[in-house]
């Protein structure tokens, strides 16, 4: 085979040569070449090995539908399955072929080809079952190694971005039909976005020779003038190098733009943009795709689709072979024939499966004028050759075989409107008996399909079709368009899906899906085994399941299946086309929402102080909270927590509690609302006092807890857990808006309006007395669970006496601008009293020593107030509150519910761990009854042993008895079940 440059192509810069490497060998191409066109220029056609059988494969097409020429770019980060027909070369690019070892020429895997009779359809489902033990040790490792087409890529950090568009009209495709439609939009009031996957607009005008004149002008001139006109219209925006991959509901398109075409991507420059487009009207003008024909060895390197061959000549300036053989069942290949002849290349033969008397006059003229051997009513029976075609066999209508020596065979099995996006939009298709293909019929969304994408293959109808479909937009009409064509005005095709092969050998194959190595025999076998529904057959044979989604062959498969089943093709139907239309990288989907931007980080106003003072942070939802503070560089987590816990009970400690939710509730009916939301009764509560409150869901289970401060019957402030803040506010809003809209009550989240400092410990009172000289903190003046409004310098603050640690404690609410000053003041005055900062782990430990629950830790949505021993929080005379009725359901009143207890080890050396199960006896005969599990556990420096809170069946009755903790590490050990309070059991310290 000999390729030849076509210097007429204006898209290739022949004066700018580029060096690149393929499988370690250096080649030369030109600026504008894709890897495929550059390899073809260098007469390289063997570029990979097939998936299952490792058969040699060549470049089959010239576009996104390529099944074979998938390569890896190792001079980048090794993205596998890159289409050589799309990726443009740049200086120094290193490309590697896939699926072969050790080399393309001598591939160990080609042994699969010899074993191929075993690898028929469905073998995945039937083999590797026995012996059973072999799966884990033998089969799986081998299959994992052999799986996939390429090698995994290297880690690579990209800066892909996203872009959102909102337009009146989005046009997908920038070819002939799109440009004609676009002319009508020039100067109109519509905002139009056109999206084209190639670097240039023009489509079929660039990729073929089919149209020589439009309205009497040379098509290249018409194109140039049209593009200039469009550029002057400010309402039209054009994206090139952008491929639409998804058409979602509602009129939402996803498109991926390549910013580094023909250049090497660099780590800090965005290389891709993911466009998200919302359009009132979508116009699909994305054209058609040629399909193959199945015959013996139709996968040998050297077989190529006819329109792709023509595209290499016109668009990429290279004639892949100067004397190919052409095989077709339709009228579209005339333009390829004429193109070759005009470039002084004579095809070795033209084989047309249609009868001679039906062939176009123009076609017959070209053939006779150039003395090209013509076979009509004839088919290619098959090809022969080792790693490329050496010879093809032509069978005429009488069955006689003629052999022709050649290295290149151009085939055309027909044209399919590209209906992927249309069916993604949930539109339905219809079978066209004239053009033998599926075309769009009923759209579901605001979708219009024009041109060949809509099944218009008659040039004379094109203008009328566009005008009719765009009429409702009140635009300029196109009228009848005059074309001077090199092909026939109306497309004519005769059915041909498969040619029967001569040899009956099990090694010669007629392929339907090239990427997944599915043969037409596999389809027959699948149907024989009972998979006669197309969705089942697809999965059984893996037909059209490759990265190319069988774009050039899936309709053929339906044709073959319909003939076997003796059903109409429309009855057989198609499988669902699934997005994306072409592979989308994860980096483009993530965009900038990765690494440091992965999740919004929330910080409290004194975050910097924590950082400077040794805080080690933990994530609580999106918040960064100090987990513990390192008092010296090598202090471990355990040491720090033990030190902090001991210190707070001995002296004083302060915690940044700003992350806890705070909700302000106000209105004439605020009291009634609060009584309905919480279990407590707030009616008799005095103003300026606070109460620990419980909130249930309608199923009676504990949802959240917090402190409710009453300013007046019309004004409350409620706190929530950090994680529950948003949920509690939504829950309250839901009931206020949907259930009780007649109540006058308003809610506002004030979580961010105040910083909260929780100071506790025996010295906390004396420290506050020093900071706030004007406030009387004595026990009688400032009792437990009361609050007041005060001033700090000039700013308003609240101080509430409450504690989560069981020591004397206060919560100070201060505005963010004064927060740091106050915090530092606390330390300035508190240093002499031993004040330290403590973190969330210490807070958890100290509250557990008092048996205080944490919602979400000790509860899990299946725990009632009775289970927790919190019946005292339920207002006695309340008629109704959310969850009340559920507390008397059969499930909530049964007597074997899990209840909260404390557990301490009998032998104080044993450590209790969270999640451990509690069992009654050491009798290990299964089934072992599990009583419950440990919900929180800590090593307490104040008790000098480990302890835990647990929920166990009939817990209350088991208090003061013994049980066992089931340990995964060895012997289970004995524990004592006690009331869930471990330290200062009479709460003397708290109330002092």
């Amino acid at each position, binding site marked *: 085979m000999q390729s030849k440059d076509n210097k007429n192509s204006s898209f290739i810069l022949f004066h700018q040569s580029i060096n690149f490497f393929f499988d370690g060998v250096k080649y030369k191409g030109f600026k504008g070449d894709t890897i495929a066109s550059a390899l073809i220029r260098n007469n390289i056609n063997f570029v990979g090995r097939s998936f299952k059988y490792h058969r040699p494969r060549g470049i089959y097409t010239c576009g996104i539908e390529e099944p074979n020429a998938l390569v890896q770019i190792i001079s980048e980060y090794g993205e596998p399955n890159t289409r050589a027909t799309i990726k443009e070369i740049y200086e120094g690019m290193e490309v590697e072929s896939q699926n072969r070892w050790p080399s393309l020429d001598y591939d160990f895997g080609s042994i699969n080809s010899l074993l191929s009779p075993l690898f028929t359809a469905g073998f995945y489902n039937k083999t590797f079952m026995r012996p059973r033990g072999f799966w884990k040790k033998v089969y799986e490792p081998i299959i994992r190694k052999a799986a996939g087409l390429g090698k995994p890529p290297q880690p690579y950090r990209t*800066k892909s*971005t*996203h*872009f*959102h*568009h*909102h337009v009146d009209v989005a046009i997908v495709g920038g070819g002939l039909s799109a440009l004609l439609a676009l002319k009508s939009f020039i100067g109109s009031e519509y*905002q139009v976005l056109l999206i084209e996957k190639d670097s240039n607009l023009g489509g079929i005008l660039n990729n073929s020779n089919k149209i020589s004149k439009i309205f009497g002008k040379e098509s290249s001139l018409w194109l140039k003038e049209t593009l200039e006109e469009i550029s002057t219209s400010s309402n039209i925006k054009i994206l090139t190098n952008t491929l639409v991959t998804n058409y979602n509901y509602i009129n939402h398109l996803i498109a991926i733009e390549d910013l580094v075409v023909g250049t090497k991507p660099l780590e800090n420059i*965005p290389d891709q943009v993911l466009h*998200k487009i*919302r359009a009132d009207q979508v116009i699909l003008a994305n054209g058609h795709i040629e399909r193959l024909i199945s015959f013996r060895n139709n996968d040998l390197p050297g077989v190529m689709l006819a329109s792709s061959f023509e595209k290499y000549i016109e668009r990429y300036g290279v004639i892949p072979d100067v004397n190919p053989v052409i095989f077709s069942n339709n009228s579209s290949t005339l333009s390829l024939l004429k193109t070759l002849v005009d470039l002084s290349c004579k095809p070795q033969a033209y084989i047309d499966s249609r009868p001679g008397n039906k062939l176009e006059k123009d076609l017959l003229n070209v053939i006779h004028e150039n003395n090209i051997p013509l076979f009509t009513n004839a088919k290619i029976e098959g090809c022969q050759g080792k790693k490329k075609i050496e010879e093809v066999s032509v069978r005429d209508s009488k069955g006689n075989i003629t052999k022709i020596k050649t290295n290149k065979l151009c085939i055309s099995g027909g044209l399919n409107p590209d209906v992927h996006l249309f069916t993604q939009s949930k539109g339905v298709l219809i079978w066209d008996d004239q053009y033998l293909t599926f075309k769009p019929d009923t759209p579901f969304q605001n979708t219009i399909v024009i041109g060949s994408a809509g099944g218009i293959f008659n040039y004379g109808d094109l203008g009328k079709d566009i005008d009719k479909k765009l009429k409702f937009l009140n635009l300029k009409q196109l009228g009848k368009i005059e074309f001077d064509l090199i092909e026939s005005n109306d497309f004519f095709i005769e059915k041909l899906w498969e040619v029967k092969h001569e040899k009956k050998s099990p090694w010669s194959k007629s392929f339907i899906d090239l990427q997944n190595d599915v043969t037409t025999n596999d389809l027959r076998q699948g149907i024989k085994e009972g998979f006669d529904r197309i969705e089942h057959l697809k999965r059984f044979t893996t037909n059209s399941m490759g990265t190319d989604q069988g774009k050039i062959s899936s309709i053929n498969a339906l044709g073959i299946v319909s003939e076997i089943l003796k059903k109409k093709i429309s009855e057989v139907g198609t499988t669902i086309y699934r997005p994306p239309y072409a592979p989308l990288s994860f980096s483009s989907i993530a965009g*900038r*929402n990765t690494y*440091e*931007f992965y999740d*919004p*980080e*929330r*910080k*409290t*106003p004194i975050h910097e102080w924590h950082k400077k003072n040794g805080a080690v942070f933990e994530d609580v939802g999106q*918040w960064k909270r100090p987990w513990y503070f390192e008092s010296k560089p090598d202090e471990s987590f355990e040491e720090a927590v033990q030190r902090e816990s001991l210190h707070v009970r001995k002296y004083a400690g302060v915690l940044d509690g700003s992350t806890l939710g705070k909700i*302000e509730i*106000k*209105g*004439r009916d605020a009291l009634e609302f609060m009584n309905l939301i919480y279990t407590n009764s707030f009616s008799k509560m005095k103003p300026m006092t606070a109460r620990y409150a419980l909130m249930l869901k309608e199923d009676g289970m504990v949802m959240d807890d917090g402190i409710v401060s009453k300013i007046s019957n*019309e*004004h409350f402030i409620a706190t929530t857990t950090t994680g529950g803040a948003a949920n509690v506010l939504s829950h309250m809003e839901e009931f206020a808006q949907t259930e009780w809209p007649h109540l*006058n009550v*308003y*809610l*506002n989240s*004030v*979580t*961010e*309006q*105040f910083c909260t400092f929780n100071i506790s410990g025996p010295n906390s009172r004396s420290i506050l007395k020093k900071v706030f000289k004007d406030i009387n903190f004595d026990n009688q003046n400032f009792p437990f669970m009361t609050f007041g409004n005060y001033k700090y310098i000039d700013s*308003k603050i609240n101080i509430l006496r409450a504690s989560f640690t069981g020591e004397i404690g206060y919560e100070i609410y201060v*505005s*963010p*601008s004064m927060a740091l000053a106050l915090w530092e003041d606390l330390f300035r005055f508190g240093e002499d009293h031993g004040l330290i900062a403590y973190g969330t782990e210490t807070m958890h430990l100290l509250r557990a020593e008092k048996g205080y629950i944490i919602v979400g830790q000790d509860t899990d949505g299946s725990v009632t107030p009775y289970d927790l021993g919190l019946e005292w929080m339920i207002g006695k005379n309340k008629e109704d509150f959310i969850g009340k009725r559920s507390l008397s359901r059969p499930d909530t009143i049964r007597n074997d519910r899990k209840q909260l207890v404390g557990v301490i080890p009998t032998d104080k050396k044993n450590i209790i761990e969270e999640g451990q199960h509690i069992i009654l006896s050491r009798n290990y005969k299964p089934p072992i009854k599990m009583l419950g599990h440990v919900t929180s556990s800590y090593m307490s420096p104040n008790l000098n042993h480990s302890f835990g809170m647990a929920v166990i069946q009939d817990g209350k009755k088991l208090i003061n008895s013994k049980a066992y903790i089931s340990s995964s590490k060895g012997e289970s050990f004995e524990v004592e079940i006690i009331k869930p309070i471990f330290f200062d059991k009479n709460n003397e310290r708290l109330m002092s």
Partner: protein
Amino acid sequence: MKELISSNSVDVKSLNLIQIILRSKFSDNINQEINSIFKIDLPKENLKINIRENIICSKSSFDQWNIIDLLGMSKNIDTNIDKLNRNKEVLVTNFSEGQSYFEISGENKVKILNKITHFDFRKKMFPNFTSAQTLIARVDCSIYNLENKFLITCNRSFGNYIEERLIDAVKY
């Protein structure tokens, strides 16, 4: 006021403003009270912004208004809030310090924002002197269209993240 980034025909600043949120049904009474303090009327049309010198007042939904002082100069805010709150049927809260404020202006302001939010900025969907609540860079934000600039507010704890996302959107 801090200049965050100025490049690519877009200018992003972070500000410290004064803001109060009023929750109430509309009544002439409450309108008069607001007027006496801020000299501005509560808009009756949803999403509309009334503007008088440095004070803007926008209606964010049928029972919520936001009043923002763009120069952060108003005095006695807390006293005024306490006065307004004496009415049992309304809730007025000082939101000044709990939010971060950003101003984005320049020819390319919409182009930059289109990188980090799905919100539709077209004139017909987001006219001048209207406001909206939406997601920007996956964070709940309010946007105010002040003709030649947008004011964006979000919870203060997200302020650092939004600042970095805005700068990143201008750069990349």
